[in-house]
């Protein structure tokens, strides 16, 4: 790795690091600390192949690793996920005026990791259906159906929550 490679890697981190971290937080749904760890892990892989990939869309490469790792982590730690994503306890009364945004994030976290990844890429990153499909290595049809099903689930759960609150 040349000095030029090293400097370019630092520039890449400064420019894209935060965006990768935010994607990881939204997709893996783990704690901030775990998400940072995951991004570090992904970036180590990027660093390993940096001289080869730096001129060939390193961001897409890094993002694919982050997404794959975030989905795997969410799946491997299904049990942990259940804690972070557990519904508000039915046993304790929830404040009925729970912030809408908190509720949306909680419902997002309850979705299967891959479905969540589709929603994050489509609606937060504003990626096209084609770009989302390429990043996740699935078909455009699958992106369409996952996005529609994800939104429908969130909508349905929010309606239930509203009825309970009433």
């Amino acid at each position: 790795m040349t000095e030029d490679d090293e400097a370019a890697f630092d520039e890449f981190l400064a420019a894209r690091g935060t965006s990768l971290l935010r994607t990881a937080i939204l997709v893996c749904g783990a704690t901030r600390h775990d998400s940072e760890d995951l991004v570090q892990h992904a970036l180590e892989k990027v660093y390993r192949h940096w001289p080869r990939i730096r001129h060939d869309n390193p961001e897409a490469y890094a993002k694919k690793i982050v997404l794959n790792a975030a989905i795997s982590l969410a799946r491997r730690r299904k049990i942990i996920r259940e804690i972070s994503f557990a519904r508000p306890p039915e046993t304790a009364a929830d404040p009925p005026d729970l912030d809408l945004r908190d509720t949306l994030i909680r419902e997002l976290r309850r979705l299967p990791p891959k479905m969540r990844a589709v929603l994050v890429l489509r609606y937060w990153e504003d990626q096209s259906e084609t770009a989302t499909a390429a990043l996740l290595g699935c078909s455009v049809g699958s992106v369409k159906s996952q996005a529609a099903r994800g939104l429908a689930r969130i909508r349905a759960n929010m309606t239930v929550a509203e009825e309970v609150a009433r």
Partner: protein
Amino acid sequence: MKIEDQLADAMAEHVAGAEIPPDLGRAVRRRHRTRVLRLRMAGAALVTAAVAVAVPVALGPALPAGGGDAAGRQSSAVVTDDVIVPNVVGMTVAEATRILRESALRAVMYEGGMELVEPEGDLARSVVTMQEPAAGQQIAAGTVVRLDPGLTPSPDPQALGDLGDGREFGGIRLGYLPDGLVWGKWSADKVIGPGKSYTTSFDEPGTMQGGYDVQVFVAHGESAPQLLATMPGKGATVVDVGGRKAKLAYLYRDDEIVPIGSDSGTPTIVWEPRDGLAVQIRMERHYAQKVDAVAELKKIAEGIRATR
């Protein structure tokens, strides 16, 4: 406002404060050096393994050497074994892998366009949702079949309802909890293996939603050995809990033991209070830095009694 716009706003707000730490570049390079060192250490073992497999390959049936004339090509087409791809969609990853191996095909797990390099644990029980090439196609033996593992159905997050102070659940009672911890008001069942298993957690009141400080897992019958097996075989400290041997370690990413006291590890203890009943307690690593984690884990463990 449409729900996707509301969701986009919520996501933007949720991560608005998240920035990469200033020393990220250094951390990535440090991690890289550690990995290179570890690979070098493993190098010698790999060379030995390569020599060991080279022999059966050399003794195996010689493959046709791609003849130049028509007869040669024809014979190569005859010699190469073609197989019909079996249908493995709907099977567990473990089953699908076995069936493909029996058909002389290789299974590789893919997700997000990437090969999953550590298809273990949960994944083996996941159900295959997609395969490529599809069933019924005729392909050469030894070809890779890509499998996309779906998710195993998740357990009901509120499996056990209102547990009061949460100290009695899943067939055990906790006699001791560190000061300041209260029941996290959630529970799950069917968390590991085919037998009965449960989990719940305790945290400090006011902890951010989704946090936990101490989580307890209980596994009965066939699930008990599986819970015990979550602790890596070597490297854990053996401690005495009520006359039974327990394993205690700081775990990084659930499967790697790091030194006791390390802030990247989750302090974890697992043991069988009686035969056929396994309990695992883990302490969230930030909380662990605030207390005497090892002493507290042992005290919680010693306070646990089976209630059935």
